[in-house]
């Protein structure tokens, strides 16, 4: 007899597995792991329902460090495994951990389709803008010109913006945070609360191969002016003095930063965040300097039917139509004859 332990009684540490964590000292993944372990006890889910699925990459080692069910699969394909798992058993609480290479280089197609289908799961993208595990080649999110062993004279690829891509693929929930962000568990909780695929991009520092790449956004001295923490229903205001705001220039149909109190700008002019507005979310997701801040928080949340529920209801309907389905009867349907 197995008795399920109510998760509520569990502590973050109860979600740590017995395996030694083997990321480089100082890797941003540690903080993300901790944030997840701090999140789960607060969710109303039995521990044995959690399944962590990943592909291949430093970040994809994640499941080994969780004491939940875990499946470390193959490079780029985690969304497909997760889809099979969730369709098979919609009761499971599926979390997918991926990297910018795993999720958006080799895995871009599966990412597109899981988002489009809206299979209920949380996808945590550890975006370090580099291939960590294979020792530092540029990734699809690397900045143009980045010099790496495979781009000694600078990458000529133009970088992908994962959240913009996700919205283009039909995602119903996208959010952004960074590894050491205090309230990262809150973002995870929002992602979890959203029924359907939730994509959380986490800016993650790779101390070995791409150290400090997010410093122009995350460094203490610039943070207030280079980040905007968006919240549904609240004006898009940021800055050290909380007086900068995002305005829609209706002439050019672009977002721009304005200062409240300057040039006659009032709070009225500042956009109010509407997380159900896809166009706004797309524009917010696009922002990445130099003039515009990087948007953090829940950029888009606009739930719609989930895939596995649609599958379930078609099943239920089919079963309702034929109450005690018999394969033997099926084989005897149609044209038969006795010899």
């Amino acid at each position, binding site marked *: 007899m197995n008795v399920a332990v109510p998760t509520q009684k569990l502590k973050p540490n109860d979600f740590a597995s017995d395996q030694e964590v083997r990321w480089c000292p100082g890797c941003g993944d540690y903080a993300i792991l901790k944030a997840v372990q701090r999140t789960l006890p607060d969710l109303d889910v039995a521990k044995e329902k959690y399944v962590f699925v990943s592909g291949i990459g430093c970040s994809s080692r994640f*499941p080994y460090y969780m004491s939940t069910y875990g499946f*470390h699969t193959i490079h780029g394909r985690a969304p*497909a495994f997760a889809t*099979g798992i969730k369709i098979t058993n919609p009761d499971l609480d599926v979390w997918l951990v991926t990297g910018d290479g795993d999720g958006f280089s080799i895995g871009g197609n*599966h990412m597109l389709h899981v988002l489009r289908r809206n299979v209920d799961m949380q996808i945590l993208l550890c975006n370090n803008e580099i291939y960590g595990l294979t020792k530092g080649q540029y990734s699809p999110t690397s900045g143009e010109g980045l010099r790496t062993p495979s781009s000694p004279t600078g990458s000529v690829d133009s970088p992908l913006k994962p959240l913009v891509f996700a919205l283009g693929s039909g995602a119903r929930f996208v959010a952004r945070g960074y590894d050491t962000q205090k309230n990262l568990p809150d973002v995870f909780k929002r992602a979890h609360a959203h029924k359907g695929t939730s994509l959380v991009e986490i800016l993650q520092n790779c101390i070995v191969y791409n150290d400090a790449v997010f410093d122009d956004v995350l460094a203490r001295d610039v943070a207030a002016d280079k980040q905007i923490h968006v919240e549904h229903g609240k004006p898009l205001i940021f800055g050290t003095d909380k007086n900068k705001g995002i305005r829609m220039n209706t002439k050019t149909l672009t977002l721009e930063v304005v200062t409240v109190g300057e040039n006659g700008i009032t709070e009225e002019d500042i956009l109010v965040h509407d997380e159900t507005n896809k166009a706004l979310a797309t524009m917010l997701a696009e922002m990445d300097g130099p003039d515009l801040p990087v948007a953090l928080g829940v950029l888009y949340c606009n739930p719609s039917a989930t895939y596995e529920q649609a599958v379930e209801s078609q099943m239920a309907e089919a079963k309702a139509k034929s109450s005690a389905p018999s394969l033997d009867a099926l084989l005897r349907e149609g044209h038969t004859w006795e010899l």
Partner: protein
Amino acid sequence: MNELNIKADSVADNRTAVPSVVIRFAGDSGDGIQITGSRFTDTTALAGNDLATFPDFPAEIRAPVGTTFGVSAFQINFGARSIETHGDEPDVLVALNPAALMVNIARLRKGGSIIVDTGSFNARNLKKAGYETNPLEDGSLDGYKILEVDVSKNVLEAVKEFGLSQKEGLRCKNFWVLGLVYWIYGRDRKDTIDWLRAKFAKRPDIADANIAALNAGHIFGEAAELSDSVGLFSVGKAEMKPGLYRTVTGGEALAWGLVAGSQLAGLEAFFGSYPITPASPILHSLAKLKQFGVKTFQAEDEIAAICSAIGASYAGALGITSSSGPGIALKGEAIGLAISTELPLVIVNSQRAGPSTGLPTKTEQSDLYQSVYGRNGDAPLVVLAAHGPSDCFEVAIEACRLATKYMTPVMLLTDGYIGNAAEPWLIPTIADREPFTVEQRTDPEGYEPFNRNPETLARPWAVPGTPGLEHRIGGIEKADGSGHISYEPANHQTMTDLRRNKILGIARDIPEQKPEQGESTGKLAVIGWGSTYGPISRAVSNKLKEGKSVAQIHLRHLWPLPANLGDLLKGYDTVIVPEMNDGQLKTVLRDQYLIDARPVTKVTGQPFKITEIEDAIDFALEN
């Protein structure tokens, strides 16, 4: 309609009794040839014949009317004796247009019969077919028995009372011809009429017109003096096991077998697939079986398809995926993961002619190498092959049994030929079968993910959602027992040995190989696998009748091979291996048993002819 008309025609005195007949219906894709074929099949089955069919679609979806590449054909071999193949050479060719004649005439038996619709032999169609002169007039068909009928005109006449457009009317051509052929073989029309009524329940005018055409064709036959041209025949009942029968294609049988297998295992089936010719019919069949708890998932590609199926197995269902050669190639990496994580998985490969895109609508057996050897690393799995349409059902069940009992991927080989071909099937009763219910692990006591059942070497199947069994698996090498990541050199050897031995051990759990025909020792063994069963079987039986020392061995289990196979094969002076590939099973046999297994290969996209195997037997016995 006259009640008397639709009764079975009693064997007329002037009918010649023949043991078997091969008819090939051919016409434009739009002529309804496949429907004609399947109606003829049902009626023939009802008449008590054994039979085998071969639908031969054009590669194009809907090619321009009248072109040679738009010709669709359906061949049926039926008889008063057991029938193994769809027949080497048609006795009768029905050609509804010049292109159909052009494409098919070379197959016809010398002296065979041709029924042509002269109404379609106009200048335009002749030119489209590539004829410079009219073959009906230029003597090129001398030596065949020809029945020339203006079917088009006759049909329009027969259906005019129903007020159809000319186009709709001409669509009844196939039933007119069917009526005529029914007369020639003394067949009952009732079943076809019932079928038409049911099929066109909402368009009774169409049903009536087709029935009228059917009857008109029949009447035409009665009136014409056919014994002078194509002749009248009777084909008696075959001796078949008594019971309830239906016809079944390989695709259907496979789909049903997978459902049966998962039921016997006590599991839900999850089927992840991506459409590809000729594998798609299995997806289509299973998509209709939601009431049995079958979940079908049309993935974005073959990789996602297999990964979703592995995910499903991980989550406790029986994961199944299906594709054809190029798609299976894409699954190689993921198959390795299923092997490494030791999860059950059934991989169905409906083979087609390769390499690369190859000939998607043509059949071949050239994925055996890929099945046995086609992955990175030492990555053994189980390989099974079905030898005919109804056998697909049994092999699918066996695949489910082995996959779940041994926690292993199983590659199930079928091919385009088997998938589309139909044969009568003595309907089995699943309720009577011994279930092989899978026990998933629930007890946390002493649980380790890679602690094995000492007999099967299978690891326990612990499904997410089970309290206390939380664990992690993945494609990195795992420590024997605990399943933790292990870079330990000795452990990798241990695990490689275990994976190999688990699969090889299955040889103890499958039947000993017995010859299908012939003695267990002798001059020559003809060993085959898959859809070559029909022609090999007939060829060997013909040669046995001639008194030759020859035996037929046909493999269902290709990896591991049956434990006694090596000894069995060594009992023959010579072993030949007919395969629709460039010699793949022969590699496995030579490697395993060091016997001089000699390849007999054919790579034309077409099944072997019986005579080709007979020639190979003669050659092997003489050389």
